[in-house]
């Protein structure tokens, strides 16, 4: 029996080691990818990279200025459309979401977070690009907004639910009407968490490519008009990576590094917001 115990203890040690190995294996690609982004992408980053548009095919030089601005504009449009709807729906679910309608909305929101983004792209093409008669950054923004809404809805609901009931009771006891209790007390208290959820969603859509293939299309030029096709970093990376020119590959790594940095800025600000909240008590 003693040997049995030793065997069992040994198994426990081994399995612990196996899980450690799993963690190492899981993190290996992360370090590999980030390492490659820095090593291969950093060499492309120069002043030209940030202020010039792509050069003609096969030429050297050029940059991704139009793509960087395009990413920011399209993400801005998408957020402007998606965040209000998502936050509004999330507050609804937290405050009034007990009934059958609320249950349905909650279920659909969860299920829709997994919608393949290429399907949303095709959908927006049919609904916006076709009637409009041309591709546009606006259509791209609408597609990204559709992707954001389910995510933001659920995180907002979760955050508002976390606000202690005592706050609500106190406000109502002071004579606040229901709507002011919700808007000015509950939402305000949950606001850092809501912002976190919003930033996380923004970080996610900043990297999207598939829906933009059929909506924003892409643009060689520096364009700020949302009613025209627009280039984004994600589209630029796709075109450059699948092309044959070494110059394009070099630029693709640089663009990927910049895109990753943008995504991380949004993601890290999300965490920063939460941390500040906890520090304030």
């Amino acid at each position, binding site marked *: 029996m003693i040997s049995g115990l030793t065997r069992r203890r040994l198994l426990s040690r081994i399995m612990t080691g196996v899980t450690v190995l799993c963690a190492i294996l899981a993190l290996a690609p992360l370090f590999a990818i980030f390492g490659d982004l820095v090593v291969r992408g950093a060499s492309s980053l120069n002043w030209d990279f940030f202020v010039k548009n792509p050069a003609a095919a096969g030429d050297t030089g050029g940059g991704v200025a139009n793509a960087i601005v395009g990413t920011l504009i399209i993400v801005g449009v998408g957020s402007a459309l998606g965040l209000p709807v998502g936050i509004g729906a999330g507050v609804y679910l937290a405050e009034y979401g007990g009934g059958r309608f609320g249950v349905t909305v909650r279920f659909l929101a969860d299920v829709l977070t997994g919608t393949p983004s290429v399907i949303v792209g095709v959908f927006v093409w049919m609904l916006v690009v076709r009637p409009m008669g*041309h591709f546009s950054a606006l259509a791209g923004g609408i597609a990204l907004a559709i992707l954001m809404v389910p995510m933001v809805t659920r995180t907002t609901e979760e955050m508002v639910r976390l606000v202690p009931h005592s706050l609500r009771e106190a406000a109502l006891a002071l004579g606040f009407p229901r709507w002011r209790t919700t808007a000015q007390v509950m939402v305000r208290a949950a606001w850092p968490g809501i912002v976190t959820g919003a930033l996380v969603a923004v970080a996610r859509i900043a990297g999207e490519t598939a829906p933009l293939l059929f909506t924003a299309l892409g*643009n*060689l*030029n520096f*364009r700020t008009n949302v009613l025209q096709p627009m280039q984004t970093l994600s589209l630029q990376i796709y075109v450059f990576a699948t092309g044959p020119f070494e110059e394009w590959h070099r630029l693709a790594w640089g663009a990927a590094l910049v895109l990753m940095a943008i995504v991380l800025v949004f993601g890290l600000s999300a965490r920063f917001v939460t941390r500040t909240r906890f520090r304030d008590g």
Partner: protein
Amino acid sequence: MQSASRTLLLTLLAAVGCGGSEVVLLNGAGATFPNIIYQKWITDYNTAHPEVQLNYQSIGSGGGVQQFTDGTVDFGATDGPMTDEEIAAVNGNVLHIPTVMGGVVPTYNLQGVTEPVRFSQEVIGDIYLGKITRWNDVRLRAINPGITLPDQGIVVVHRSDGSGTTYIWVDYLTTVSPEWASKVGRGRAVNWPVGLGGRGNEGVAATVTQTPGAIGYVELGYAIINKMPVGAIRNRFGNFVTPDFSTVSAASAGAMAAMGPDTDFRVSLIDAEGERTYPVSSFTWLLVKKDYGDQTAKARELVRFIWSAINDGQAAAPDLGYAPLPAELKPWIEARLRTVTASGAPVWPAED
């Protein structure tokens, strides 16, 4: 660095100025075949004419025709001309304007092979039918006596998107291989018997360079820019011809006779006559509307751009792997461009 900041400033001004009548924005999409030279023309033209900003997305000829038909772009580009049904779908409101000539060439990835590999009509057909699967197949060796072909599997690469380059290539295969004609046929996208798909000329070139033993078809310019080996194909005369600017140009001689001043320019140069003609040559066309409704400024600027491309732009062709248009074609193209109307009148600019 100074010019970069100036370009940025100019384009910023142009962008800010858009929406008003100052800057005309033109969006086009389509063929990847001429993308190398179109990008050159467009970049140069945008810089020289800040009041116009052209944008061209190379999404494939299929995309060009589709977007043009849908009306989601101002002009399309294709190397597989629109069929009569497709023209009917836009109520005939389309002109095919040839801009440059090019050749679709076989390129491959074979270590240690420095001489151009020769392909006969039957061999290239059977490779793409999947009937010849190794580089040292007896039939390949028979026509390549001076080359040691390795015992390596042939990886066929084709287009995954709808493509005019495909159209030219399978037009050729249909012309020379009866089995291909009956099994597969011609079109911008076909049911490929074998092979890997690459997106655009760019994707096929990329896949071939990254895959040992691969063979693919790309526009000559892509092979040149990427310093990829180019094979020779046997033409109707029996000569193995390597594609270059002169052998591609030679293909148009016979076609000129077939066209007249009233031509709609939808002429095939496949398997053309001539001793030194490269058999897989083709025009590439811009799809332009006959009538642009009330978009007068756009129509005028587009016509002006095309005129500049057909004249000044032709000089850039040989270095980039294309062949300039035959000089005899230009008067006919000019006559056709003069018929483009908007707001009830031709948009041809008063000064050239």
